[in-house]
């Protein structure tokens, strides 16, 4: 399952875990890419499972000739012990019949490593927003009870709204309210499973559409930075973009970014 890079397995106890959900626009994965390359986080292990579609490529965060031929697999764990920050990057979608198994795998890994907090970065289809969600910030959050006990009202104080529930049968008034995250991938089920397993989990999601989702990744990352103070900056350009974001044209000082390695893999449908 988790296989460390060297012989020594790192201890994640009391660290914060940040992971993406493979969701619309791959925003979670892009935001995690930004985080890993900004902080130059080293890879400490692999999540080796048959639940994800296999994929390999050269290191997307390479800054030099030698490191650009380091192999990268579809799910890797990066860790900064001094900041007590662990990041799981998932680069390929789950095999269709194995999403449940994958959720349980990640859940049991989180439990066994005793992370202090887990944060899932995700996104949802903007075209499914209802009237309340159309105006204001596109960011929303969800948190389990255990997470609320740890951080309290912090997210609300940062002007973030909790994700609204939707009626199970739209149009009918007295119907039960349920969580609905279209385009969120495993987000909804993972959140409900973490709630029932009493795991402190927060979900940060953004409403977006498919396209060039780099700005959404920045928005998500900036909010996360405001909350956790991971990178000491207030400006956008300080957050380093991964080296391989170069094919798309964006007017920034550093090399023009392009993320679509994640996109191309997510297009694979088996």
């Amino acid at each position, binding site marked *: 399952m988790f*296989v460390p890079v060297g012989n020594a397995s790192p201890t994640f106890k009391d660290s914060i875990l940040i992971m993406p959900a*493979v*969701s*619309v*626009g*791959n925003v979670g994965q892009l935001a995690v890419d930004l985080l890993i390359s900004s902080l130059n986080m080293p890879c400490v292990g*692999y999540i*080796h499972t048959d639940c994800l*579609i*296999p*994929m*390999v*490529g*050269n*290191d*997307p965060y*390479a800054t030099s000739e030698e490191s*650009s*031929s*380091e*192999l990268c*697999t*579809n799910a890797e764990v990066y860790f900064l012990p001094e900041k007590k920050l662990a990041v799981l990057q998932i*680069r*390929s*979608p*789950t095999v*269709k*019949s194995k*999403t*449940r198994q994958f959720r349980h795998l990640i859940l049991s890994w989180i439990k066994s490593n005793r992370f202090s907090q887990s944060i899932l970065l995700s996104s949802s*289809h903007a*075209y499914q927003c209802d009237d309340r969600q159309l105006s204001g910030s596109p960011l929303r959050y969800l948190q389990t009870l255990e997470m609320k006990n740890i951080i309290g009202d912090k997210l609300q104080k940062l002007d973030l709204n909790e994700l609204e529930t939707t009626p199970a049968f739209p149009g009918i008034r007295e119907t039960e309210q349920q969580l609905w995250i*279209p*385009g*969120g*991938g*495993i987000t*909804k*089920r993972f959140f409900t499973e973490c709630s029932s397993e009493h795991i402190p989990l927060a979900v940060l999601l953004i409403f977006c*559409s*498919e396209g060039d989702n780099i700005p959404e990744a920045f928005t998500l990352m900036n909010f996360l930075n405001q909350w956790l103070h991971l990178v000491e900056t207030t400006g956008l350009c300080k957050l380093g973009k991964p*080296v*391989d974001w*170069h*094919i798309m044209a964006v007017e920034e000082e550093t090399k023009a970014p*392009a*993320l*679509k*390695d994640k*996109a*191309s*893999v*997510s*297009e*694979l*449908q088996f």
Partner: protein
Amino acid sequence: MATFFGETVTLSSRAVDEEDEEEGEDENEEDREIKRELEKKREVHLQWNADFSRQFETSSDKTLQISELIIAVGYNASGFLSAFALSSGNWETAGNISLWNEKSRFSRETSLEHPGEPSCIFYRKDENPEVLGSIEKRSLKVTILSDCPVANYRSPEYISAIPVPFLKALKTRTYNENLCCSSLEQPNVVSGIPAAVLSYCQVHQIPAVLYQCYTDVVKLDSVTVETYKSTLSCSSLRKLIKHFWSLVEPDDYKNLHQAALKMSALFGSTYLCDSAISDMNVMKSKFRTRLTDEHLNDSIRVNLSGYTPPYTSLVDSMQCQSSD
């Protein structure tokens, strides 16, 4: 999302499939039973030949000691290995893998290979019994050859400016040899069997290399197969290939082919030297005391030249008894 005509359509996403969300929601026992049956049918079966099964049983840890594993994925890669490796030396079939999924046209019970169906066969070389499909991880080296459509290759330059087909390589951390071609640039990725094998090797620290050939022809094509020839310089493949030049078409690289064959036969035998020396011994007999070095040189030259004087015309041109 509403279209111009007022109908609503669901937007598709490159990342998620809407069907994923309904998975497992209202499953009853019958659905689960059907799923279990399907899972069983889709299992991959590995069958070894009788010799190999015996070797497995008799080994102490139920493994086979192998040092090299070479995998070819795709028509051109397997065509290359068949032509260049399997045709030189003695290879025996060691085993095969059979599998079924909804795309197969034949049921699993028929054990024959069907042309056009995906199949996997293991071969082992007689003289070098350590080259094969392996189970044992220690001191194992893996080489993978794979085809890929060039449409999947992403590059800042125009694809039409890059000569196709071409090779790109990916290697695991523990692989130390030089690559036979350039490394696959970001943001290109590899998926499927080559990715699964390479991921496994990276995670378990097994030295492995993947040579991916980007080609515009999906079926078996001689130009694509020839592109793989540059991988012959890597150590795993080099030791498999004997009499390489005899496998090259004489018409393709005519001059090089002939020069190479001549070079390989250069010291095949010393017959010519020996026969020249015997001729020289006949010439330099004890009675020829006035034979100078120059004369000897010239005589040997004439002897070795293979030139036969036209005796008849020479004789005809001479008059033995001329009358003045």
